């Protein structure tokens, strides 16, 4: 089998853009992948266009070789554009391999290790009570694990001690509504620079019996996470900002993490994720894939989770209710808070070309956060 073409797709889902790609072969099998939408998305599409000739005419089954030589020829550390492009290609190559073999992708990654993939659901709201209500609605649907921000959205503009007090009230309101049973995680989202402040926050919210605190330190300097983990009496989760096996291994070797959160769309794809999970396993660390993007990201996360022994839980935002669900032909909905494993050959999802064409890309950026003195904050 030979690769004959790589086609990219770019669609606006009402909130941000989704980047998809299809790899076609001379045997009529097409593989689909998704790349991370980083903001300057057209650069990812340009990168995929640049890479395209390196893949045309090649055997799509040689995934390690194809990805390795792509990384090697690029030479310089890839960054978010290169890693996103490679990840999307990797996923599409596994889709082809699965379709060619007549097996779901997880069956080609060591076989399934579990019968279902548990998810946690993001919970949102303007007020702590509204966040709690959202959780209660989801509990009625069968979900049993949730994640929210520990801080109010305008915390950057208020005195820190007030933000801490509001975090306490927020956690108290949510736990008061849902009880101690449901798993509850919080996401600091690399927004706090000073580890001392993150530690203060952790001490305030740890009594609420959290599943994990996510990204409590900036991702650039791994020692910050390592310093926090030494003090934490709650699980530290991080990794969505890291790319590739080497960077995750730095994190793991630094004793800086309890739960890693690779994103299938920018960590390097399914093969890289398998490698990362193996190193994590040797460190007694579990994997909770980051998953905020399109439905193919969820599918890739499910296949990854199904193929590793040290899976923890998958991120999920109820995407079957969102516009982006139109971009794929299949509808995957968790049952009792977990995805059943797909049984179709390959990834088990295909693109809805009409819906994608009907929603051309729009400019998207993350916006800007500022502190009360007007200086830029992290977000």
């Amino acid at each position: 089998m030979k690769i004959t073409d790589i086609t990219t797709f770019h669609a606006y889902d009402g909130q941000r853009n989704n980047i998809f790609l299809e790899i076609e072969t001379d045997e009529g099998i097409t593989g689909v992948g998704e790349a991370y939408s980083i903001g300057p998305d057209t650069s990812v599409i340009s990168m995929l266009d640049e890479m395209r000739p390196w893949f045309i005419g090649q055997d799509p089954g040689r995934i390690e070789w194809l990805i390795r030589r792509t990384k090697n020829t690029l030479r310089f550390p890839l960054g978010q554009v290169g890693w996103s492009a490679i990840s999307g290609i990797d996923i599409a190559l596994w889709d082809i391999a699965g379709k060619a073999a007549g097996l779901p992708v997880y069956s080609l990654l060591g076989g399934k290790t579990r019968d279902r993939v548990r998810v946690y659901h993001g919970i949102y709201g303007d007020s702590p009570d509204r966040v709690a209500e959202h959780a209660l609605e989801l509990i009625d649907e069968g979900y049993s694990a949730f994640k929210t921000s520990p801080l109010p959205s305008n915390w950057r503009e208020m005195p820190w001690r007030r933000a801490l007090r509001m975090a306490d009230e927020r956690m108290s309101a949510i736990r008061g509504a849902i009880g101690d049973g449901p798993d509850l995680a919080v996401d600091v989202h690399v927004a706090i620079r000073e580890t001392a402040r993150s530690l203060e926050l952790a001490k305030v919210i740890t009594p609420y019996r959290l599943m994990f605190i996510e990204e409590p330190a900036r991702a650039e300097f791994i020692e910050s996470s390592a310093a926090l983990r030494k003090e934490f009496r709650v699980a530290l989760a991080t990794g969505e900002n890291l790319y590739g096996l080497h960077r995750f291994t730095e994190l793991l070797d630094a004793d800086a993490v309890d739960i890693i959160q690779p994103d299938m769309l920018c960590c390097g794809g399914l093969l890289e994720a398998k490698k990362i999970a193996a190193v994590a396993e040797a460190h007694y660390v579990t994997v909770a894939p980051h998953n905020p993007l399109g439905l193919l990201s969820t599918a890739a996360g499910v296949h990854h989770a199904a193929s590793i022994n040290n899976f923890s839980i998958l991120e999920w935002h109820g995407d079957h209710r969102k516009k982006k669900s139109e971009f794929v032909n299949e509808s995957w909905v968790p049952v009792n808070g977990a995805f059943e494993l797909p049984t179709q050959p390959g990834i088990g999802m295909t693109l809805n070309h009409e819906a994608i064409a009907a929603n051309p890309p729009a400019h998207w950026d993350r916006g800007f956060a500022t502190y009360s003195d007007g200086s830029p904050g992290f977000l």
Partner: protein
Amino acid sequence: MKITNIECLISSDETGSNLVYVRTNTDAGIHGVGEVYHVGPDRASTDWVEYFAEQLVGQDPTEIERNWALCYQGARFPMGSSGLAALSAIDQSLWDITGKALDKPVYELLGGRVRDKIRAYFDIHGESAAELADDARKSVDRGFTALKTSPLPPNWREMRWNDAVSDGVARFRAIREAVGDEIDVGFDAHAAIFEPIRVLELTDALMEYGPWFMEEPIRMENRHEMGRLREKMPCAVATGECLYTKFELWELVREGGVDILQPEICIVGGLTEMRKIAFMAEAHDLVVAPHNPMGPLASVANLHFDAATSNFLVQESRVLKPAEIASVTGVIEPVDGYYPLPEGPGLGIDIVEEELTSKPYRGSWHRGDRVNPDNSIAFI
């Protein structure tokens, strides 16, 4: 597809060495094979195979990760050599079954091949420097570009240390005179030297002729000391054949104790564990050169690993004995210093059962004893 039973076939060859194979059968008519490391008390491994089989019958053989965890986690206590040898062979057989079910060579299930052929190094021997040089020349004439031998003469334990080192240097000089400067020559001290400083003295002396690597320069039990030694070693350190699972290899890597990892596919936990170790090595910019003293089945399993692993360096190879060759449907030998890629489906090799039953098991295999001149026990 379900596993219906797992058989352990054990046979003793004319030299008293044992061949221990596993055959996993399924209800789909497909079976898979694997090789058990013969650790010495080999009956213990057949007991382990039976024990694991009780748990695996009825499982889907293609759920390899899960089946591995079922055995490993079910054992609870670290299982040691005989248990891991059994698990390693069963794991290989599951990859074989999965490949056969898909009609693909196993390496295609590991991300596909990254190379067209697989470089081999050849073990050379000689009582004297002249014999060793002669073996080196013959091997290079056969096409090998990489060799390995002991850094010391066979009787070094009975010699004064400085004489043994001088003799080791003379042996290396003879190899270089025989094969020139461009052949890679690695040395295997075989975990037989107890004092780290002696290894340093020996390796420093050998540096004039450019050793490729020094293998198992000291004992393997203490990963910390291996790390401290490597800080001073003037050439690459190769080690790992005596370590179990990714966890022990990780300890070695964490201590900075290795340049070239040499996991043993028949004892480290099988092909599944070999892959995880290779990933961890890749993350530390380290390479893997699989240990390979077992039979033809283990060699083929290694070749699938080698074909699919980017950070593979070189494959150990040796002369197979007639009983080993007869025990399988076909062996793969290196040609011009390279193994060809193995062919599937699966591992692409099967057991010849009649050969094994015709040479029944005669008892445990013993490595033999080594003693120092004062009759104290030496490492072997």
